[in-house]
C-alpha cells in the first residue's frame, strides 16, 4: 500500500491541511445561524488531510528504515519541461488577453503548444492555429454570444 517516497505526498498533504487551518483562523469568531459555523467542515477536512499525510510520512520512513527497496514513484524534473513551457505560454496568454484580445492572443498560444509537443511543420502550425482560433471565435462570439475579450481591436471594430 505504501511506497518508499510517499513522504513527499505526506509533506504536501500536511502543507495543504496547514494552509487550510491558517486560512480559517480569522473566522473563529464569526457568528453563524447554525451551531457548526463556517470553520467546522474545513477544520475537520484539514485535520483529516494532515492525519493522512502523517501516516504516509511514518509509513515511508518505516519502509526506509527496513531498507525495503519497494517501488516508489520517481519524478524526473526534466520530464516536466513541456508542462512548465505550456504553463508559461498559458500565463503569457492570460496576461495578453485583455490587451491583445482573443483573436490575436489565441493563435500564438496554439502554435506554441504545438511546437512544445514536437510539431515542426510550419504550414501545419499556422493552419491549425489560425483555423482553430477562427472556428472557436465564430462559435463562441457570434454563435453563442459570448463577449470574448477583443483588447485594442474593440476600438477598431
Amino acid at each position: 500500500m505504501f511506497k518508499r517516497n510517499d513522504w513527499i505526498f505526506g509533506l504536501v498533504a500536511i502543507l495543504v491541511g496547514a494552509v487550510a487551518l491558517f486560512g480559517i483562523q480569522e473566522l473563529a469568531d464569526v457568528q453563524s445561524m447554525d451551531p457548526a459555523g463556517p470553520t467546522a467542515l474545513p477544520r475537520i477536512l484539514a485535520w483529516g488531510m494532515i492525519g493522512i499525510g502523517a501516516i504516509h510520512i511514518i509509513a515511508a520512513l518505516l519502509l526506509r528504515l527496513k531498507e525495503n527497496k519497494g517501488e516508489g514513484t520517481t519524478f524526473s524534473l526534466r520530464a516536466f519541461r513541456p508542462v512548465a513551457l505550456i504553463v508559461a505560454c498559458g500565463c503569457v496568454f492570460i496576461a495578453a488577453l485583455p490587451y491583445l484580445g482573443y483573436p490575436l492572443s489565441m493563435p500564438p498560444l496554439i502554435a506554441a503548444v504545438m511546437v512544445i509537443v514536437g510539431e515542426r511543420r510550419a504550414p501545419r502550425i499556422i493552419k491549425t492555429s489560425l483555423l482553430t482560433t477562427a472556428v472557436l471565435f465564430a462559435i463562441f462570439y457570434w454563435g453563442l454570444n459570448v463577449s470574448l475579450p477583443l483588447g485594442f481591436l474593440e476600438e477598431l471594430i
Partner: protein
Amino acid sequence: MSNILLGLKYVMQWQSLLMLGVGVLWGTVGGMIPGINATIAMALLLPFTWGMDPVVAIMLLAGVYCGGEYGGSIPAVLIGAPGTNAAACTVFDGYALHRKGETGKALYASLFSSVFGGMVGAVALMFIAIPLSSVALAFGPAEYFALAAMGLTLVCSLGEDNVLKGIWAGLFGMLLSTIGFDPFAGCPRLTFDVLSLSDGLKMIPLMMGLFALTEVFNQSMSGTVGDTAEHKKIDLTVPGLADLKKWLPWGTLCAALGVLIGAMPGAGATVASFLAYSFVKKSSKDPDSFGKGNPLGVVAPESANNAVTGGAMVPLLALGIPGSNSTAIMLGAFMIHNVTPGPMLFVDKPEIPYSIFTALFVANILMLLAGYICIRFAVRIANIPKSALLAVIVALVFTGSYAYSGEIFDIQVVLICGIVGIFMKKGKLPHAATVLGFVLGFIMEANLRRALIVSKGSYLGVFTNSKISTVLCLIAAASVLWSLFAPLVRRKKAATA
C-alpha cells in the same frame, strides 16, 4: 390514458416534431462544447420562443434539455474533457475505452444508455409524477446530507492500491468546495483576500483543468508527439445484442436512481451520475476494472444523468418548484407564456404537462439520430494529428472556461488545476475523488448545517431523527468500513491460498 393521447396528438404535429428535432440537435451540439451545458443551451434559445405556441416552445426546450445532458459525453469519450458537469463521470471509463481502441463501444454505450435513461425518465414522469413528488418532499436536509455522504464513500474505492490517497483526494475536493462565501455566516472563507474566489471555484474550470489539461500535460510528457501519425481507423462498431443485454439491468437500475435524484430539488444530473457510478462499481463483481475501460462505467452515469431530465420535471410540473438550473429556465418559459406550473396545471391545461411527458419520450428517440450524426462528425477529432489535438484541447478548455463565467480568472483556475492534476496523476491520487468531493462537498455541508439547525445542534439528531437518513448513514458507514478492510481480507485470502 386519454391525457397521454392528447399529449401525443400535440407532439405529432409537424411543428412540434421539427422543434423537438432542432432542440435535440442544438442541445447535443451545445453539450459537446465544453463550457456550454444544457442550461446555457436552453437559455440561449429562450428569447426565440416568445412568438411560439406555449406547447411548441416548451417542447423545443425539452429537446435541448435531453440533448444537452447527452452531448457532454461525446468529448468526454473522445478527448477526456467532459462537455458538461454531468459527463465528468463518463470520462473515467469512456476515455479509457477510447484509448484502448474501443471508441465505438464507448460512444454507443453512452448514446444508447442516454436514450434508454431518458425514456425511463419520461415513462416515470407519465405514470408516477405525483407520487414521486411526495417521495422527493420526504427528503429534508438530513436525508440530503446522508445521501451525499453515501455518494462520497466512492472515494474510498478510487485510490486503487492506496485507499488513504483516495480519501485524501476526496477531502481535498471537499475543501475546494468550501472556498468562497459561507452560505450561512455570509463571510468569505479560504479566499486569502482574492476577490475572484469570493464566489467559490466553479465546476467547469475545475473539471477542465483536472481532466483535460492534465491529459494534455501527461501526453506532452510522454515524449515527442508531433510526428505521430494518428490517421488510424477509429473503430465505430455498434455494440451487439450480447453487450446490450449485459448493460440493460444496470442501465435500468441507474435510470431509476436518476429519476429519483432528479425529482429531488437541488440534487441534479451530476450527483445522479456519480451516485450511479458508485453504485455500479460497488455492486460489480469486477470493481477493479472500473476506470480502466469498463463499458458499465459509461452506461451507469449516462443512463442516470439522462433519466434526471424526467425526474427534474416532477417538482416543476407537480409542485411548481424548479429543482435545477435547467428547469428554472423551463419555468421562465412557462412564465413568458402565462402558464403557471403546479397541481392545477394538470386540471386547467392538461395538454401542456402531457405534451411534455410525450415530448420527452419522442425527444429521446430523436436523440438516437442526433447522436448518430454528432458521433460521425465528432469522431473526426480523434483523427487529427496529436500535436494539433493537444493544442486544440488547450484552446477549447481556455475558451470554454472563459465563456462559462466571462472571467479571465477562470482560465487561471484551469491552469492551476492542470498543474495540480498532473502532480496528482504522478502521485497516483485519483482526480475523480477530488471532483466527487467537490460536487458532493457543498451539498453535504449545506445540508448538514441546515439539519443541525433543525435538530437544535444535536449531531446525533441529524442521523436518528429520520429513518431514511439513519439507513443511508449506516450504508455509508458500512461502505467505508468495507472499502478499508476489503483489501486486507483479499490479501489474507491470497496469502492463505
